[in-house]
């Protein structure tokens, strides 16, 4: 059988790591399935909640999450953390064809933060005659690396990094000084050539041992201004 369930041979007790959902992770653009258990999702929710809490978004504010369904292991914990904080989650697909929905959601609701912006989304907005810098003005925007580079010079956007290190998600907090990784969940090592290696520290639906992420970055281990001690990633 697959990685999603265990099978029992005879009566008795067995270690079980059933998956709640199966998402994906990427290594240098290559797709791999990423099963995650309910506990994996719950711990990820706590971790992303700590990043959210470096902001003071008021209850009842709206946010916009831009993703595809395959991003479930990265995005579901974020959405659940926002539900806990009474933030209202608007959704759009991470696709160049979603410019209409993204514009419409931002036009209709008082969106405080936008998560998961991709270069393809920016391309779609621009092709439809919308300037992303103007659209996202005044908002906190967590952008994936390809979009981050392009929004870096936009004034009036509070731009934050959204970096996936294989299965591990690193997000910048309010300080914007390197992306936090959940150090309870993941151990990061740096190979001699600077490539980051990721290991899972807890019992997960799928475990990782020094998995090469394909990402070269520096690691900072000093205390962040937000108070969180774990390592931060700077590309």
């Amino acid at each position, binding site marked *: *059988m*697959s*990685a*999603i*369930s265990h*099978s*029992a*041979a005879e009566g008795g007790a067995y270690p079980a790591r*059933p*998956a*709640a*959902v*199966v*998402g*994906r992770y990427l290594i240098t653009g290559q*797709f791999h*399935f990423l*099963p995650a258990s*309910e506990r994996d*999702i719950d711990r990820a929710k706590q971790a992303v909640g700590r990043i959210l809490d470096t902001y003071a978004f008021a*209850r*009842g504010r*709206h946010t916009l*999450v831009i*993703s*595809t*369904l*395959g991003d*479930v292991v990265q*995005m*579901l914990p974020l*959405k*659940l953390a926002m*539900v806990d904080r*009474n933030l*209202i*989650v*608007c*959704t*759009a*697909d991470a*696709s160049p*064809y*979603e410019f*209409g*929905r993204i514009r*419409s*959601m931002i036009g*209709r*609701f008082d969106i405080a933060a936008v998560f998961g912006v991709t270069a393809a989304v920016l391309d779609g907005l621009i092709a439809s005659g919308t300037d992303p810098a103007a659209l996202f003005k005044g908002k906190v925007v967590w952008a994936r690396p390809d979009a981050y580079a392009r929004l870096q010079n936009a004034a009036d956007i509070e731009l934050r990094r959204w970096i996936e290190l294989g299965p591990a998600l690193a997000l910048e907090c309010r300080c914007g000084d390197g992306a936090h990784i959940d150090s309870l969940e993941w151990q990061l090592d740096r190979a001699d050539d600077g490539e980051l290696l990721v290991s899972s520290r807890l019992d997960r639906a799928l475990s990782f041992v020094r998995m090469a992420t394909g990402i070269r970055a520096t690691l900072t281990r000093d205390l962040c201004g937000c108070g969180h001690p774990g390592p931060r990633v700077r590309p």
Partner: protein
Amino acid sequence: MSVATSAPTECVDERYYDPWRETMPRADIEQFQQARLLELLPRAYKGAPLIRSTWEAAGLAPQDIRSLADFKARAPFIDKDHIRAWRDAHGDPMGGMLMASPDELVTISSTSGTTGEPTPIPHGMYTAVDQDLMRGYWHMGARPGDAIVFLMFTYRGGMFHAHGLSRIGLTAIPIAHDPAEIPRFVAASRQFRPTVLMMLSSPLIIGLEQYFEKTGIDPLDVFSSYKGVMFGGEPLSPRFAALVKSWGLELFEFTTLGDVSGAVQCRMHDGMHASEDLALVENLDDDGKPVPDGQIGEMVVTSLADDHAPMIRYRTEDLVRMDHSPCACGRTHARFWPIGRKGDQILVDGRSILPRDIQPLVEAEHETRSCLFQIIRPQRDLAALRLRVGYEPALLQGTADGLAARLSERLRSALNVPVQVELTPCDELLKLGPPHKIPRVTRQ
């Protein structure tokens, strides 16, 4: 390798996810609907400004409604134009439909927006659609421990749905509803051997056909574990039905009740099952009078399981036939057969034509097998049927003019109206809409 389980106890009917609800006698369904309605109406009247204003204009208050019969005789209608007008007049993105306080809202999804600006749909973590789908998955054969591939759009709120499945022991594998994701869908099918898929659409079937032709991968092997596959988005065409059957899949058509709840076929494949405990479904004529079973009318729905923005007597513009007799599958709720959208209907020489009449004729020609077409409809009454049809240049067996002539003749003789066909390569036609989906009816 499988865990031995004891036989189900006699009192549990494992055919149904929710046996009590799904097999209620008609009188009990109506009693349940009445109880829900009487709870709902005062809250909707108090909370949702458009409902209050509509009822006030009709000179009606919730306390005037004491029974289901009262409701059906007296409750005023709303439609999408009312909601839009309220939205524009009051700057209210929810169109006056939000009953709950913003504190109770979890998420805002939206309609596809294929033919206009997407309409926001506010809700909690789970919706009536989620409940209805669960009954469908179970009926198709999904059981705790199984994997389900969930091929959908995130703007529909699919991530919470996927998470909800895990709470009853199913493992969801969510993948974007996009032909570009087909290799992942195929890989997931082989690796996790899911029992249910939600859902295929015409664009994905076209994509899969091309994928299997190109790679030589055997669809029978890829799909060997599936006990059922939902299909939705538009009517299932005869060619796609046969094609998917040849892959070893059993399709269950899925549609929505005006976005208030879902509806899925059962194994009898004789109509869509409405869950009447989740939504009150009426089939009415233009004057709001009930249409007898078997005859065509407009579906009008009322949410019975929406605590956030319930629709109250919403005219869906969907033309349907209904049947309230129990189904051979054992369920007692009404079944219906979608005929088409009111707004998609055209009259050529006084003859009514809907996209589903054209579908089997277009796909019968090899070059236009993808069944991509648009009805050009500047107004409802036309002297001739004008169609823009996508063809695959690589499949062309003669000239494009020859194909146009062949197709026109096929359409003319079957529909018995004058026909004008305008051919466009499929790739070009697809640029007119969101990816892999074009509006079936266009003004120009």
